[in-house]
């Protein structure tokens, strides 16, 4: 066991898999000699060589396209797209090729590519370094989509993603790379040093790609969320003085419906929260699922707290971000309904 940041945990997952499986390679902009702009692959090229940890040209479409070819040839590429905001040139290769290759060829061909990409706001990144586009990818048929919230899960889920024969889009909220964020921008940043989820095994382990986690048990309501907002929800529930059951979805596709249903049926109240825009966001799918699965147990309409339906602004970051106070307000409103 070591105390790790999310960056160190992601690096450790690469290290474990590069060591364990000679077919694993890492591929992306600045990830080789330099070790990545967020340092997630630091030292790996030196250790595994420039033919396994490869610097790529600035061409996301080319990176994804060639990674698919590497995967067809029996390798397991772990691709880094430097920011989720820059994934779109690779979108056609993901939508039209990577996600449907197995289907269109009746299982003859597949490409086990993992695409890692830092996402989310709270870092003064404006509209080009803050996006949460997970809902665009969960809408596809044939890719698994993950968003991580802590170092332990990040390593275990990334190893599962690399080992999966299905393509995985792996979102890493960069605001919590170095420490959890409780959604109060006035408070100084904290590190993962004292957080229980910062305790990470040094070797190989996995976290399954189809299981949500109940990060806190409670009785009054269920908050269903993922990524950075897991930590915001925990702090908000405490501040609101309610006993909230908090579910970290972790793998958005496929969705662990059972965990969510059982919890909401128990509490009777549900709040869905994410950073991404609201309209047709992933939360809409969660709401529809809860409505269908838990309708007769619901004591109040399902609540949603999300980013606003605007591009992500630079100047109004904390008005845009679903900060702790917005979740507190949402919790109070939800609890007031008789």
């Amino acid at each position, binding site marked *: 066991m070591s105390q790790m940041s999310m960056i160190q945990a992601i690096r450790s997952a690469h290290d474990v898999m590069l060591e364990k499986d000679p077919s694993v390679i890492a591929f992306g902009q600045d990830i080789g000699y330099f070790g990545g702009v967020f340092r997630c692959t630091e030292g790996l090229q030196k250790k595994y060589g420039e033919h396994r940890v490869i610097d790529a040209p600035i061409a996301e479409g080319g990176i994804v396209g*060639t*990674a698919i070819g590497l995967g067809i040839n029996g390798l397991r590429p772990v691709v880094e797209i430097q920011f989720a905001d820059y994934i779109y040139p690779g979108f056609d*290769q993901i939508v*039209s090729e990577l996600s449907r290759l*197995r289907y*269109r060829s009746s299982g003859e061909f597949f490409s086990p590519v993992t695409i890692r990409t830092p996402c989310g706001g709270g870092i003064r990144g404006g509209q080009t370094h803050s996006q949460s586009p997970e809902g665009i990818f969960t809408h596809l048929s044939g890719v698994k989509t993950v968003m991580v919230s802590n170092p332990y899960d990040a390593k275990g889920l990334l190893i599962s993603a690399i080992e999966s*024969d299905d393509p995985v889009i792996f979102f890493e909220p960069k605001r919590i790379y170095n420490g959890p964020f409780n959604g109060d921008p006035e408070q100084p940043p904290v590190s993962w040093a004292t957080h229980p989820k910062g305790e990470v095994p040094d070797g190989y382990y996995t976290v399954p790609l189809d299981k949500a986690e109940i990060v806190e048990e409670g009785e009054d309501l269920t908050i269903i969320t993922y990524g950075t907002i897991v930590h915001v929800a925990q702090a908000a529930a405490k501040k609101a003085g309610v006993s909230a059951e908090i579910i970290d979805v972790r793998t958005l596709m496929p*969705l662990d419906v059972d965990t969510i249903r059982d919890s909401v049926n128990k509490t009777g109240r549900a709040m869905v929260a994410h950073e991404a825009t609201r309209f047709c966001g992933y939360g809409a799918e969660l709401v529809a699922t809860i409505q269908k699965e838990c309708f007769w147990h619901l004591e109040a309409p399902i609540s949603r707290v999300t980013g606003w339906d605007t591009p992500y602004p630079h100047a109004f970051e904390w008005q845009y971000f679903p900060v702790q106070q917005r979740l507190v307000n949402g919790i109070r409103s939800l609890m007031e309904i008789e």
Partner: protein
Amino acid sequence: MTKNPKLHIPQPTARPGDAPDFSYLNLSPAGSVERPPIDARAADIEHLALEMVRVLDDDHVAKGPWDPGLDTETLIEALRLMVLTRTYDERMQRMQRQGKITFYMQALGEEAVSIGQGLAFEPGDMLFPAYRNQGLYIMRDTGLVNMMCQCLSNSRDMCKGRQMPIFYQNKKSNLFTISGNLATQFPQAVGWAMGSSIKGEDHIAASWVGDGSTAEADFHYALTFAAVYNAPVVLNVTNNQWAISTFQGTAGGERRPFAARGLGLGMPGIRVDGNDLLAVYAVTRWAADRARSGGGPTLIELVTYRGGAHSTSDDPSRYRPKDEWKFFPLGDPVVRLKQHLIKEGNWSEEQHSAMEVEMKTTVIEAWKEAITYGTMTEPPFLDVKLMFEDVFAEMPDHLKKQQEKLLKMQGVTS
């Protein structure tokens, strides 16, 4: 002086009713282009992208340093494969017109691309074809019956009914699944080739796009990555002059040949007479040998003509002269190879007619067998539950539920 620079809107040399005009094609005399060694420096052979490698002259005689010296047996086999491709196309085109299949695309007039190039690769080389490369599937033993079953979406369809007709696949013969999205296979082929190198193998990859889809970003990604990493790959542009209704100038072919697209990256380009099977084989073999020996990628432009419509959904008489193909200066690849063999005393009109009859019989027999496995309207049909398989390696719960729901609606118990 004008302050309003006018845009250039490319226009073909002839539209319906006009006399065909191929004066824009820059042709080199057969045998006139030098053949450099496979380890020549890219910078020293840039002229290959601008000239045109041709072996067969107008009298059907093989000339010059690019004559690959293929034996008669191989040439007759190449001719047979081209005739088989054309016969298969004729049959399937007719079956579409009769409503037996929903869609079809012929390779009429450009058969030498798939057959001539296919002969130049090793069986272990991975090919990423485009949609008019059915010849590659035919020559790599996909089986006519299997190909027909794909077009029929019947109970033996290799794609289990997931793809439109002609989107074949054949993994055991190292033929990738065809995508309907243009040029997406180009960077994938480069990635595959990179993988071969990383794994320490000497297999190479090859891929094909049309003149039209060279405008896609994927084409340029592929060239960049192939050049950057010196990937062992042969990248091919089948320039058949037409991308549905837009002529090759709309994709940017007017000022410089497509073969020259890689020169800025330091990648050799070769422009070849795509209807001259000997020349097609020779340049492809040169590029394959170069790639296999560590010399990196080559871009080949095969100049040919799309003899038929883009697809069964297209009517070319609305945008190009009806008889344009007759005036195409590089002729018909089947006729040219046949005449070459006759000229050499190794073939005759009688033998050729007999072969055509044999190929026709082969295709008709295959069709008869294929429809016993079902058509779109006659059983046996594919099991509808297959719709939910192969989305993921293992079917997740939500798909199991949807599958169950559909089967229940249809009154199927399984």
